[in-house]
């Protein structure tokens, strides 16, 4: 009995001494056969399950693009719905490999959280939504208002900064989940609801009377939303980064989901490099030569993903704006694949 407990104790100690394998994310994913992706609990246009339980959205498409690049199968993704409160802990602990959850890129998140941002999926900004019946036309008229916000987000801090720098008072009502926040706003507990502008349009769709609510014109902050991976694994970091860049580069070069096979036969040197006919760029990332073809066949290029999820082809109908390509009036710019 005494010997057994001693052996057990030693085994426990040995187990606890094992280091976590952070530099092997790609290998772990290949062994597992799935990419573990953290998404939101239901933000239309970014990551939301439809009534059959299939996830759609621009953040979801980034995860599917990564899965397609690795496995040639965009369905090899395991989605984990995370609230704003526990998204970072899930990434830090290794529960997910990639956090694609409309998360704003800030300095403190890049450093203290032990994570890296791999790029910007969507350039956004924070705004306010109020009921039309309040007859408010600008966020500067919101002195002494009650504002509903989701807790643990940059939104809370930007809200505090905005009201302080404009010398206005306000009451903050902070909830853990996005659904409770929206419900409280709808019930009249708050005068205004604040989150990223894209979120405002998305949540307005979910309300009982979308026409009763208006989004105020002020954008009070910069919110570059992008995917996050853990510190300590440069290969995985490069892989996810270049999957997003490939989607943007493909749009720049005019390669779409439909014409990718045709473009693969082209003689143009740039197309040959991107689509894998020339060079071994895919293998340098730990993927295959046809990695961009796989991505485009699965989700299309950046423009197609945008249109399908948040743009003209979706109920949200948000204009490209800042998210257009750099040579079309926006700031989406990807380094060249060479």
């Amino acid at each position: 009995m005494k010997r057994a407990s001693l052996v057990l104790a030693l085994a426990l100690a040995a187990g606890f001494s094992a280091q976590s394998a952070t530099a092997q994310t790609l290998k772990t994913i290949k062994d597992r056969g799935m990419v573990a992706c953290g998404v939101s609990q239901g933000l239309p246009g970014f990551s939301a399950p439809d009534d059959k339980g299939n996830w759609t959205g621009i953040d979801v498409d980034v995860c599917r693009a990564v899965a397609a690049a690795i496995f040639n199968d965009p369905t090899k993704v395991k989605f984990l719905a995370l609230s704003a409160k526990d998204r970072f802990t899930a990434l830090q602990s290794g529960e997910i490999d990639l956090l694609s959850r409309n998360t704003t890129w800030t300095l403190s998140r890049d450093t203290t959280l032990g994570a890296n941002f791999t790029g910007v999926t969507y350039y956004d900004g924070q705004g306010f939504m109020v009921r039309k019946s309040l007859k408010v036309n600008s966020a500067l008229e919101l002195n002494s208002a009650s504002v509903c916000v989701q807790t643990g987000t940059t939104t809370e801090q930007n809200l505090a900064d905005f009201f302080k720098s404009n010398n206005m008072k306000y009451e903050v009502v902070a909830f853990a989940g996005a659904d409770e926040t929206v419900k409280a706003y709808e019930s009249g507990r708050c005068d205004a609801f604040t989150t990223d502008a894209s979120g405002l349009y998305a949540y307005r769709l979910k309300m009982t009377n979308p026409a009763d609510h208006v989004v105020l014109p002020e954008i009070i902050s910069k919110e570059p939303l992008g995917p996050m991976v853990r510190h300590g694994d440069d290969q995985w970091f490069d892989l996810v980064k270049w999957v997003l860049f490939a989607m943007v580069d493909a749009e720049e070069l005019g390669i779409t989901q439909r014409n990718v096979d045709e473009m693969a036969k082209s003689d143009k040197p740039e197309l040959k490099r991107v689509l894998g006919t020339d060079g071994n760029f895919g293998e340098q990332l730990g993927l295959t030569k046809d990695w961009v073809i796989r991505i485009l066949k699965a989700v299309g290029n950046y423009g197609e993903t945008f249109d399908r999820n948040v743009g003209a082809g979706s109920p949200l109908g948000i204009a490209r704006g800042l998210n257009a390509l750099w040579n079309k009036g926006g700031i989406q710019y990807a380094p060249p694949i060479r």
Partner: protein
Amino acid sequence: MSIGPRPPPRQLAAKLRRVLGGGAGWNGFFLQVLFVALLGWIAYDIVANVRSNLETQRIAAGFGFLTNNAGFDVNQSLIPYSQSDTYARVFVVGLLNTLLVAIIGIFFATLIGFLVALGRLSPNWLLARISGGYVELLRNIPLLFQILFWYLAVLGTLPPPRQSVSLFGAIFLSNRGLVVPTPIPTPGWEPVALALLIAIAASLMFRSYARRQLFQTGRLVTIWPYVVGLLIGLPLFASLIFGAPVSFEIPQLKGFNFAGGSRIIPELVALTLALSTYTGAFIAEVVRSGILAVHKGQMEAGSSLGLTRGATLRLIVVPQAMRVILPPLTNQYLNLTKNSSLAVAIGYPDLVSVFAGTSLNQTGQAIEIIGITMGVYLLISLVTSAMMSFYNWRIGRSMGA
């Protein structure tokens, strides 16, 4: 030479061996040392492993974040707080909010619990069935749903601030909360406060005099008219001489909300309602079992002395039942305190919501923050159960147990 019995030899070594090793002697002692060393090694290994992992991933560690600016506002704060205060102050604000809910909740839950338990034991058939129904209903529905129900019910029935219900033009009820005038102490409030303190001291002296009279001579002295007269009359008399002790700041509707006055937010009301009614149902069962544990003969003896049912319960049965009630009652108090962490679902800024929620998310230091939060809840629970143990001891002493 004396032939009487000698005192036994000192045997210090044997006594030491007994104390240190118990029945197993020196073997037992060495095994204990070994066990403690093993535990210490495992603990050290875990801590070292965590630290090295945090360092590899370059996640910030340490408690330095407590001096950083929080950068966000909190809805309700019992101490002055602004967004430029530190995370340490956020911690104190959240802690005070949790304690506020816990204290109010415990008070009302105990009240409801005792009333419902007595109702369930009442000979009145309808009252007993209704109390029983209350207990069964509230015990079996998860607390989170009850909290959400009360919040939506409270919010749903209240009007928006521009159409708030008002009392005397100074108290307003809307879905932003209950706004009451704030008392501001005017200069010269000290005499009135002193008069109040004197009145309280005099009432306590009256009470101990009446108890002494009761236990020594059996004479029942009614003191409540004097106590009420003192508590109201003396401060009133002082304020007549020295002037009113407070002036009131009347709230006014300005723009979206009320300016001035103090506000009780609907989240606090909903949370306290839900926690009190839910825990009250459990406390009712605890009290009922305590009362049933007292021998039926006590009740019969009381009524044979000519006491009413209420007087028997109050003076004879419940004091004896308290010994059985107090330990599980402590449990329920601790449960209520811990259940208050569900406040985050309705936006009440308690400790878990502002500290283990917002602050954790912003600083990313999950281990330190969760550790502090767990430590604080443990401390609150230990203090509560210490106070209840002390109360239990006092009752046990007066019962002659």
